[in-house]
């Protein structure tokens, strides 16, 4: 995707966010310490105006860039998206499971998946790393720094 397309995508997304933010700002109560002084919605309104103006500027910039580069062959983005997507998905599952399984058990599974995604194919190393890593961190933080980590429901 070219920079022009990225700018247009960013501007569109931010305009949508700005619209939503503006609608929510309109629902904020109007109250202030004294008359003619800013209340809770003043700053959000300023931000809404700023975001709107800047998003439109970025959209204009993106469209201008697109017109300038029309005819040019865009360079395809060859970066691998599958591995990062798998990593993020596994992190999402890990975080969802964390309150139920507890830190040690959930982290062992997550650690193993990450080791595999980062390129380890040695099963002994994966098992050893995914068991020792979370256990060491748990002991270090729980008993070394007195930081309570999730224990899970079991």
């Amino acid at each position, binding site marked *: 995707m070219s920079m022009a397309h990225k700018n247009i995508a960013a501007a569109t997304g931010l305009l949508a966010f700005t619209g939503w933010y503006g609608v929510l700002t309109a629902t904020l109560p109007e109250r202030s310490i004294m008359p003619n002084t*800013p209340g*809770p919605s003043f*700053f959000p309104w300023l931000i809404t105006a*700023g975001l709107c103006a800047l998003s439109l500027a970025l959209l204009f910039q993106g469209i201008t860039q697109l017109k300038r580069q029309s005819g040019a062959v865009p360079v395809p983005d060859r970066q691998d998206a599958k591995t990062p997507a798998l990593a993020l998905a596994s992190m999402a599952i890990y975080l969802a499971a964390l309150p139920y399984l507890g830190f040690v058990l959930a982290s062992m599974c*997550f650690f193993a998946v990450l080791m595999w995604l980062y390129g380890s194919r040695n099963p002994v190393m994966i098992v050893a790393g995914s068991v020792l890593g979370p256990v060491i961190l748990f002991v270090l*933080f729980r008993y070394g720094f007195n930081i309570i980590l999730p224990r899970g429901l079991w």
Partner: protein
Amino acid sequence: MPSSLIATAIGALIGLIVGMIPGLTISTGIIILLPMTFVLAPNVSIALLLGLYVAGMTGGSFSAILLNIPGTPSASATAIDGYPMCKRGEAGRALGISIVSSFCGGIISFLSLFLIAPSLAEVALQFRAPDLFSLVFFGLAIICSFAAKSLIKGLLSAAFGLAIVTIGQDPVMGTARFTFGNVELLSGIHFLTAMIGLFAIPQLIDNLRPDPARGKSSGSLTRFGTILPMLSDLVKIRIPILIGSLTGTFLGILPGAGGPIAAFISYDYTRKVSKTPEEFGKGIVEGIAAPESANNAVAGGALIPMMTLGIPGDPVTAILIGALLIHGLAPGPLLFLERADFAYGIIFSFFWANIFNLAIALAGLRILVKVLATPRVLLMPTIALLCVIGSYALRNSFFDVYVMFFFGLVGIAMRWLEIPVVPLLLALVLGPQLEEHMRVALTSSHGDISIFFTSFFSLFFLILSAISIVWSLWAERRSRLRAAKFEAGNTTQ
């Protein structure tokens, strides 16, 4: 205090290791270490983090010289002359120059910090709400100018950060805003969890991509001669060190400028004033001394606005502000007034951080570089778990962990869209102050906005903000015109 000294030394050791590992930035290292500081005394916490900050800048040069992969962005300029020296068999000489230059840059910026900070704090005590608003606004404006190739994207990033900051209770009246009835959102988004997500998660994802440079032979890692610089080299690097130190200190004071900019400006200027500019890039000691002294001097410079005005000079000092706030200490001019012992404690911890950085690097370099061989398959998952621990430990809340993950996705999207993250981060830190000072100023003036233009300091900072924005627009336009000219030239050929 002995505990602070020990903490500084440990921080320096960790900093050298963190800085050395490509793919781990100093910010990530500090974020990882931060949860461990929750249970420590404030002075010990800051000493630990300062040690990491200072030594991290030096550590980045080791992999830059040995592998041509900068360990931190600030070490990018060091690789230009450092790696050619390593290829010539002079790795030890290059590393020694790097360590000594870093030390000198750090000490010169310490002197600036020691001399300037207390005086600046006294001036800052006179600031009222309009002045403070304009100062914070200037801090954000200059970050957007420096940190982004595109000013519009920098400002958008900052505006988005300000929008995030409005979640929770408004700072003046306590009205709940954008909480959707959720009790967790009432206290707002903690900027440290957002920071962990914005910095660490994209870094972890980046490291998943195969990088041919990472498979480089580590044969050169332990085969280097003496690292203690010769007297002749020390004479050669005295001017580059001076240029680098002054450049770095000045740019460190400016929010958003940071180590990489200081290193390259210092390198470029040293080359211009050198009698042998054609030698730069081929492996000369001056080409290492200038950027290395600059990037360590940035650390001291960045502490000046952080401590005296409460404005972070770079992402690392933003995290340091967070660390101080966690311990109930607010950086700013009142820190010197009410807790002068603590303020000077920070300054002298910075001094000792440079001493320990020099000592540990010179004594332990041959062992430390073995860290470069640490398997990534163990390091990266460990960092991922430390991010989760760091977010959870702040308030023992799963909500913060989910917020961290959300901001991780935001950080990845911003990287892909080439929107800078630093303005967003600094907006998260400075946003509450910005709104509070603005509303207090307008309340005291009964809604009259001329209050921002009738105060000398406020007008001064607003003019500086306008200059930085106009300069950034002009620089962007000039760069676009040059690119268009270059393309047109290529087409006609």
